């Protein structure tokens, strides 16, 4: 069955034989022949211990770093060989990031922080604000748009960050240890939010070392020493 939504490819993300070598010294081979595909609407967990290559893989999937060899397609478009400017364009349209440290900008209100997710996409200011407000409501913070980051709890701050990652309707969201700075209650609440968003059609790639958190994912890929060790679906 062909996907009739406005998507040019079956896969949100497709990696083929990705290698990443850091030309030291010392020379470090961070990723070896990593191939994987992410379907639209998937909730994928990438699990691995420290030094397994999780962060390198995240950076490559997010086009923040380029592989030494191999190919990456986002929505069917090969991004290897693109210029820095083109890659920035891909990020502004196709990819949403959620970081462990939230990275909310201190001088901006929650609403403005969410709207910043659209800043580099060429959308006029008024529409950015409207869409940001909608997104804040979706993550349950519609009433707190005026608050500055330091007036929000950790859990609320991460929700604002999730709203910022989703406001431009990306092909997929890369969540890098999103619960790493949250207590168990807020962790549960954030995972519930990500699950709900995923059920609504958002593709989520969750990178974590926390097996409890990874349990929410239907499919789990384990990285070990820069290689895909296992790829299990529920």
């Amino acid at each position, binding site marked *: 069955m062909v996907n009739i939504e406005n998507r040019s490819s079956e896969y949100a993300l497709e990696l083929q034989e990705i290698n990443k070598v850091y030309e030291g010294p010392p020379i470090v081979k961070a990723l070896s022949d990593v191939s994987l595909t992410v379907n639209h609407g998937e909730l994928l967990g990438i699990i691995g211990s420290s030094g397994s290559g999780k962060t390198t893989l995240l950076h490559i999937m997010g086009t923040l770093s380029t592989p030494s060899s191999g190919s990456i397609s986002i929505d069917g478009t090969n991004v290897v060989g693109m210029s820095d400017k083109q890659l920035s364009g891909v*990020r502004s349209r196709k990819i949403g990031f959620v970081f462990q440290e939230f990275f909310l900008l201190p001088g901006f209100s929650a609403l403005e922080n969410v709207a910043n997710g659209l800043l580099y996409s060429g959308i006029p200011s008024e529409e950015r604000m409207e869409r940001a407000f909608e997104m804040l409501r979706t993550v349950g913070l519609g009433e707190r748009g005026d608050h500055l980051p330091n007036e929000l709890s950790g859990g609320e701050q991460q929700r604002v960050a999730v709203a910022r990652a989703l406001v431009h309707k990306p092909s997929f969201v890369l969540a890098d240890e999103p619960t790493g700075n949250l207590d168990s209650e807020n962790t549960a609440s954030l995972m519930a939010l990500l699950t709900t968003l995923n059920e609504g059609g958002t593709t989520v790639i969750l990178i974590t070392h926390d097996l409890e958190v990874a349990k929410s994912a239907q499919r789990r890929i384990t990285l070990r020493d820069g290689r895909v060790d296992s790829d299990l679906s529920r």
Partner: protein
Amino acid sequence: MGLLDILSVGSSGLRTRRVRAALSVLGITIGVAALVGILGLSQSGSADLMKDLDALGTNLLTVQAGDGFRSQQASLSSDAAAMINRITPVYEVSATTKIAGGVFLNDLIQDGRTKGITIVAADLNLLRTQRGSLKSGKFLDEMTSEYPFVVLGSVAAERLGIRNTSGNHKIWLKEKWFMVIGILEPLPLAADLDRSAIIGYPAAEKFLEIDEPPEIIYVRAYPEHIRDVRSIMAATVSPENPEEVQVGRASDVLEARIAASDAFLNLFIGLGAVALLVGTIGIANVMVIAVIERRNEIGLRRALGATKFHIASQFLTESLLLSTLGGITGVIMGMLVTAGYAVFREWSIVIPVYAISGGILCSILIGGIAGFYPAMRAANVSPTEALRTR
């Protein structure tokens, strides 16, 4: 990104770090304020001097005897004034002669202290030649110059304690009573006359029994011929010994004052430039620190889709905003200082447009220079490096 977005993003760093922004702007503020203030003050001061010069004219020559070859002081001939009058472009000639003797408030003071007031016999057109005016009373005329009447220079009147002529003051002048009929306003082109008690030549002859040749002759000639008149003056006055005649231009003193203030101007502009240089380094320093401190923000913005150009323009805008803010506050401060001092000195306030626009342009240029390296550095931080937390 539109211009408003660029300004908003560029100002975000300043909004969250206001004290630092204010402090880093100070150097530029002081530098620009110094430049605007100095230019404004010198223009206001020069305008004042120029106004004086315009009013007094630059066509007044002074002719006096210089040192002769022989050891004794040379003197002008008694018909010198008449000879000068025959030079065609000359339209006013007024002779003065110093007379030795003391000037006192009354005949009881005989301690020899003359208060530095000299007695001067003068032609009746002296005031017109000097373009001077009277503070009180009137100047000598055909009638009063024949009798013991005296007009006091501004300083002389002050030293004698005579403020106006309404009291019919008499002063003891070379052991004769003279009545004060006029007090002069200061004469900028002949400061010596401010310290004089001026009487008519006929009165000097009749009452003081003095008949000496003129000592200083003031000459007005048409401005376009002043150079020519000056060149033939010495030979006209003393055809045999022209080198014994000194010819000067009274306004040269005022022009020298303007030139002197220009010399100070250059010095202060130099100081202002140093302040601006220090301010530039200050802003560059603050911007370099901002780039280091805000690596995570750079990483986040790159993740959100900012290009290198977006990042560079953000930090360059921040630097430009800082320096322009400094420039604007500097211009305002400089204008206030100028206005304050000019009011205090009773000058007209002149703040040259080039000082204002120059101050602002200078500060914008500084922002560009100071922000260039930090902006390039920020743009070239690798996104993965920038997202790393410490």
